[in-house]
């Protein structure tokens, strides 16, 4: 059995030796190069684009402006399509924009023979704008007087939804309740995957082929079809290895524009390679969310009624839209069930870069607000915050009526116990009480839960194909994508166990090609092992059945007495090896009696979801005069069900913790208030945390097998990024007594807060 073992990544050797091919490696060196000309105003109407001088640059082939593209609006979000128009994503993008809505919007595209010519010409394109007033603050954007971004959305409100349970007004009438209230702000951050988005397009046999660094090839195919107004079958999308995505590439980015440029140039290959600066500004970012939480609590710490108002900054276009804020609201209402709970979530357009999916999808924001708030309540009550959490957190047996998620085990308490032991919580909590002096230490923690996949909000469907080779090995294909997280390895382990072959005989096909690969939705929502597992199990059993049926012909034994173990056909009654699968495979193909190419393919529609749980403990040292936080230790504990590959799981947690550290302490995109321009669109000024800013990252697991899952697994991809920031914030609070209600807790913020609190 391979599930549960830390086998080597199936792509390890190709990746470390540099043999693995990525989009840019695959593009023809003769490809034309496209460069996008971006808006230099935050809001305006393009009046005129002067390309005369740009066209004189040697090597320029053609320049397309916003007046050269069809008025054909399309949605970009990497969501499964809905055949119900009410559930479809908002179509608000054109290939290029005449009405520009943020500084960095796409106005024109230069196509040239090389990148230097393209860059020179792009700098020479002169765009004349009618400037409009712009707005960047989420609540100011909701005012009647605010500039309107999209006519269809009054007050710039893309969506406003509420949720909750219980009679709130009745609940808060209970005598003796204490009221707690707080406002919390999270920043706009960017994914910073290593490989920027890149794609190239060309025509072949009347089809447009797009090779792209994307998480969602089958979805991109649909969107390219919608954007170009051509049948979806005329689009072929190929996804090679990609250098990370973290949700930015769970969106259709420049694939439609690139396809359009190729189409307009007779199908010549056009490559669009996005720079890091453009990645920061003109791809997607994480929603900044401003949260207002009110809690009504009994003096003994029992939560009675709680309310969250959340204002999510969408930026200029809808992309993933309200899904992020709504997901955060849903997490809030279930984490600490009480008599009555209310959520009130707004997603609002502003003239800022477009917010989309990013690892955690609204939960890092909601957990920062929620878990900071719980800490503040504990301090005000003079209670241990861990006890306060234990008293109120989701109990064993809790069932959510909407998605039928169930808390089957005592996961929270188990995770907390592991984390406390790992960080020596009790001792440090006591040691760090009531410190004085310039340098102080503190310890903090937080808990969270996360969904697995997107059912029942959206479709969950996945397909798998298995093909037997002459030597008894097999190809496995899925529509679910490897994006660096190790999905291919987990899939190979699951396939080997289901079919009964050795791992080295499973050839997982990493690349997706929408003309060849069975349909799947791609990599998002921490769904790969859970959802992919269903298709692998179902297809694997079908495939096995076909092999054993053929084995009956060769062995004259009944199928019910046959099994495949380690690549051999076994008679189960006595364990005898009847023949190697390799012999059967060769015979099946070349048999003069009965030639059969043994394959299996099936689709599984998943109609379940699962709670994934966890917590984070952080220990910090705060240098008050320097306004600096040094992270001394950080521990994440997760119950993501059965671990398919413990080492890969640990690596995935490390990556998420690193993101949480940056979110908590250093990362944020900054904008010029006068122009709306992104100020720090590079990796020097955007303070992505480095290994030198990390202590050793400690990842621990509690393995409670998920009953609804094909292999006992549930989500792990995004959860590690969710609890870190509030744990760090709460540790700083213990160290200094200063509550900081916005992330990142960088020196600029701490300088202001320490002055306010009289520490400086």
């Amino acid at each position, binding site marked *: 059995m391979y599930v549960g073992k830390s086998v080597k990544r199936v792509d390890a050797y190709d990746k470390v030796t540099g043999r693995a091919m990525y989009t840019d490696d695959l593009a023809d060196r003769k490809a034309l190069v496209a460069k996008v000309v971006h808006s230099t105003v935050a809001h305006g109407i393009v009046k005129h684009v002067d390309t005369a001088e740009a066209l004189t640059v040697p090597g320029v082939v053609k320049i397309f402006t916003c007046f050269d593209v069809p008025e054909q609006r399309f949605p970009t979000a990497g969501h499964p399509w809905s055949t119900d128009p009410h559930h479809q994503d908002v179509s608000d993008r054109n290939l290029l924009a005449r009405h520009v809505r943020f500084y960095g919007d796409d106005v024109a595209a230069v196509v040239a023979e090389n990148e230097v010519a393209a*860059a020179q010409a792009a700098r020479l394109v002169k765009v004349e704008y009618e400037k409009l007033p712009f707005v960047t603050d989420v609540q100011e954007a909701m005012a009647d007087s605010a500039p309107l971004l999209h006519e269809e959305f009054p007050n710039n409100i893309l969506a406003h939804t509420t949720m909750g349970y219980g009679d709130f007004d009745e609940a808060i009438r209970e005598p003796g309740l204490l009221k707690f209230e707080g406002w919390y702000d999270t920043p706009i951050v960017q994914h910073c995957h290593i490989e920027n988005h890149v794609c190239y397009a060309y025509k072949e046999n009347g089809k447009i082929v797009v090779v792209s660094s994307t998480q969602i090839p089958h979805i991109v195919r649909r969107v390219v079809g919608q954007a170009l107004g051509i049948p979806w079958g005329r689009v072929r999308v190929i996804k090679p290895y990609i250098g990370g995505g973290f949700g930015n590439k769970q969106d259709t980015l420049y694939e439609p524009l690139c396809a359009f440029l190729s189409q307009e140039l007779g199908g010549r290959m056009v490559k669009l390679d996005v720079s890091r600066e453009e990645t920061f500004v003109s791809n997607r970012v994480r929603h900044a969310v401003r949260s207002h939480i009110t809690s009504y609590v009994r003096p003994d710490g029992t939560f009675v009624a709680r309310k969250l108002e959340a204002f999510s900054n969408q930026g200029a276009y809808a992309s993933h839209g309200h899904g992020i804020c709504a997901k955060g609201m849903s997490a809030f209402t279930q984490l600490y069930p009480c008599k009555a709970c209310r959520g009130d979530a707004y997603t609002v357009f502003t003239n800022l870069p477009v917010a989309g999916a990013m690892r955690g999808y609204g939960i890092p924001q909601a957990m920062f607000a929620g878990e900071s708030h719980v800490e503040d309540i504990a301090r005000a009550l003079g209670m241990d915050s861990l006890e306060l959490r234990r008293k109120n957190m989701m109990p064993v047996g809790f069932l959510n009526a909407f998605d039928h998620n169930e808390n089957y085990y005592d996961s929270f308490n188990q995770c907390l116990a592991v984390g406390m032991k790992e960080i020596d919580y009790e001792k440090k909590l006591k040691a760090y009480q009531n410190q004085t002096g310039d340098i102080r230490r503190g310890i903090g923690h937080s808990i969270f839960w996360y969904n697995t996949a997107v059912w029942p909000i959206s479709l969950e469907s996945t397909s798998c194909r298995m093909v037997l080779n002459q030597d008894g090995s097999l190809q496995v294909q899925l529509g679910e994508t490897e994006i660096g997280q190790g999905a291919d390895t987990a899939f190979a382990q699951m396939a080997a166990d289901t079919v009964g072959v050795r791992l080295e005989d499973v050839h997982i096909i990493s690349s997706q090609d929408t003309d060849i690969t069975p349909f799947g939705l791609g990599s998002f929502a921490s769904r790969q092992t859970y959802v992919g597992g269903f298709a692998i199990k179902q297809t694997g059993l079908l495939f096995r059945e076909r092999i054993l049926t053929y084995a009956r012909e060769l062995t004259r034994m009944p199928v019910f007495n046959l099994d495949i173990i380690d690549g051999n056909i076994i008679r189960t009654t006595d364990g005898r090896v009847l023949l190697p699968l390799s012999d059967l495979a060769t015979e099946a193909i070349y048999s003069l009696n009965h030639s059969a190419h043994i394959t299996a393919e099936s689709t599984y529609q998943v109609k379940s979801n699962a709670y994934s749980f966890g917590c984070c403990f952080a220990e910090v040292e705060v240098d008050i*005069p320097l306004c600096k936080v040094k992270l001394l230790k950080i521990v994440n504990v997760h119950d993501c069900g059965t671990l398919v590959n413990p080492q890969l799981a640990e690596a995935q947690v490390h990556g998420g913790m690193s993101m949480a550290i940056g979110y908590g302490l250093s990362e944020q995109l900054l904008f010029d208030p006068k122009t709306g321009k992104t100020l720090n669109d590079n990796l020097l000024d955007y303070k992505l945390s480095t290994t030198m800013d990390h202590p050793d990252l400690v990842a621990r697991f509690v393995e409670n097998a998920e009953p609804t899952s094909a292999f006992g697994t549930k989500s792990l991809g995004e959860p590690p990024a969710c609890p870190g920031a509030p744990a760090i914030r709460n540790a700083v609070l213990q160290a200094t007594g200063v509550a900081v209600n916005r992330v990142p807790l960088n020196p600029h913020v701490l300088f202001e807060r320490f002055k306010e609190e009289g520490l400086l």
Partner: protein
Amino acid sequence: MYDMKALYEANSVRHACELLLAHPGAKVIAGGSDVLVQMREGRLAGCELVSIYGLDELRGISLDEDDTLRILPLTSFSHITKHPLINEIIPVLGEAVDMVGGPQVRNIGTIGGNTCNGVTSADSASTLHAWNAVMEITGIGGTRQLSIKEFYVSAGKVALLPGEILTAILIRNADYEGYKGHYIKYAMRNAMDIATTGCSVNVKLTADKKTIEDARIAYGVAGPVPMRAPSAEAAVRGLPANAETAELFGKTALQDVNPRTSWRANREFRLHLCETLAKRALLKAIELSGGEI
């Protein structure tokens, strides 16, 4: 692919000067860790370059006959950090340049490039200011020397005339004998960052290690160019080497500095850093000199 109009490779210092005179718009390129970045982002797009990177005669560290420390401009940061003369005479310079960027940049980046860029945040610049470095400049007509203070003219501008290049950075024996120093780079990250404020302090204590005979301090990013804080230096000369003196040092330094507010940090925060860093760096320099606080 870089938008480079032409690249001329110099085969001697004189050849480099001739090339620069023959191509007045050309920029000197050494390691390229700044020039190529600026070329890529468009600021130097279409520029001509004169490369001096192949001139091995401009690499290395030695002592002149009069014990002047001679650091040649193409010496990389990592070579400076590891050089025995640096570790013996001015270890703080080795520590300061070890905080530049990351390992790759420290292997390609040179101290000459770091100073000739004329930027206030350069990690070598405040320490060189604090140790009275002398810049040796060579042109077709010969060699001249300038104090580092005179070398930095304004933000991004140094006192190199057309056809001139920097050929050595000198630190005289009298400026290092008996001094120990400490540099604090205050940045938002522990690697791959530029200084929000940098502060380099060195002291010479009396023989009994109880009194400050001389103290020197220089800042990066406390003004448009790296700068000394003469008031602070004067204020502590002759005072006991203790915490009280360090307090005074930090407070007095504020009379000399003039940081600005930018989106990277506001003036008030930078002033707070100037005071705090001066104090801490002085205490550390006293400790390194054998003083007891």
